[in-house]
């Protein structure tokens, strides 16, 4: 079953390639340990790479949001859409389900994955914590794209406390 690693390798190369184009190696002041969001401590060039990655994920998410729910009946409410993301979308892309979904019922959802496949081969613990956010940008876009196709505008951010556990926070603004 070599299929799963194909995407992982492609993703690693995508991140490496987009990062390499950034001509400014100086990380600038205030490099934090990347605990909250992927923009912490990045220069303008790095921010561009992150948004390019997120944009790619967004387009892929749009296509997946169209293809995956085909035989499923229309969703009744927001929570159903989030459950679809945690189960069907995650299984289709990462061959496993999301480990936990929490919500405050006010439009904020926290999706937690205890062994995120794109971070699993890197480390287990606190090593490489600063590098982790850029490997989550594509997946944030993926979630946002799928939500957008299903009619929900949202803001998705990711955070890592210790590899490979990561949390995706989806905020859906109330209109």
């Amino acid at each position: 079953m070599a299929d799963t690693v194909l995407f992982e390798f492609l993703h690693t190369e995508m991140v490496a390639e987009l990062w390499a184009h950034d001509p400014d190696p100086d990380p600038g002041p205030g490099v934090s340990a990347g605990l909250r969001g992927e923009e912490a401590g990045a220069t303008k060039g790095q921010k561009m790479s992150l948004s390019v990655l997120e944009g790619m994920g967004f387009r892929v998410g749009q296509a997946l949001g169209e293809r995956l729910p085909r035989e499923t009946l229309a969703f009744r409410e927001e929570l159903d859409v989030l459950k679809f993301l945690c189960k069907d979308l995650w299984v289709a892309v990462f061959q496993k389900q999301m480990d936990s979904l929490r919500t405050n019922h006010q439009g904020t959802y926290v999706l937690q994955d205890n062994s995120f496949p794109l971070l699993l081969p890197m480390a287990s613990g606190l090593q490489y914590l600063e590098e982790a956010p850029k490997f989550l940008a594509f997946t944030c876009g993926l979630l946002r794209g799928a939500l957008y196709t299903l009619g929900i505008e949202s803001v998705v951010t990711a955070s890592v406390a210790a590899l490979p556990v990561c949390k995706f926070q989806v905020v859906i603004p109330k209109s």
Partner: protein
Amino acid sequence: MGRGLGGRVTSGGSRDAVPGAGPPKMAVCIAVIAKENYPLYIRSTPTENELKFHYMVHTSLDVVDEKISAMGKALVDQRELYLGLLYPTEDYKVYGYVTNSKVKFVMVVDSSNTALRDNEIRSMFRKLHNSYTDVMCNPFYNPGDRIQSRAFDNMVTSMMIQVC
């Protein structure tokens, strides 16, 4: 069954069906409407007045919206993508289908083509949905643009009345 009306569609220019095989499954106009209610793709048989079909599709959107909001208040097991007959006029019947991403498909068929059964219409909509999904997954397609894919065109051509 359904052959009592003969193997021909009465509107002009259709090809002769094989006697005893029933009329071919054909639509007169097919439209794909985005969730913001503008057309992504609309095609009708060229000999007829296209504006009339555009107008029909436009008015059918109201009925589609009504059905969608009615579905939202109904019980769980009634939620379905296929909306069924939207409204009949004296010459035409209009059918609707909505996807999970709120993209609507509207199909207008000739009223005299009575052998077109419900499950045939459903299978036509399913084919449309599959082709639309392929268009969405095409990296050269920007979501929200008009659909210009030739593959999609060919599939729609196969569903429309052959008018020479």
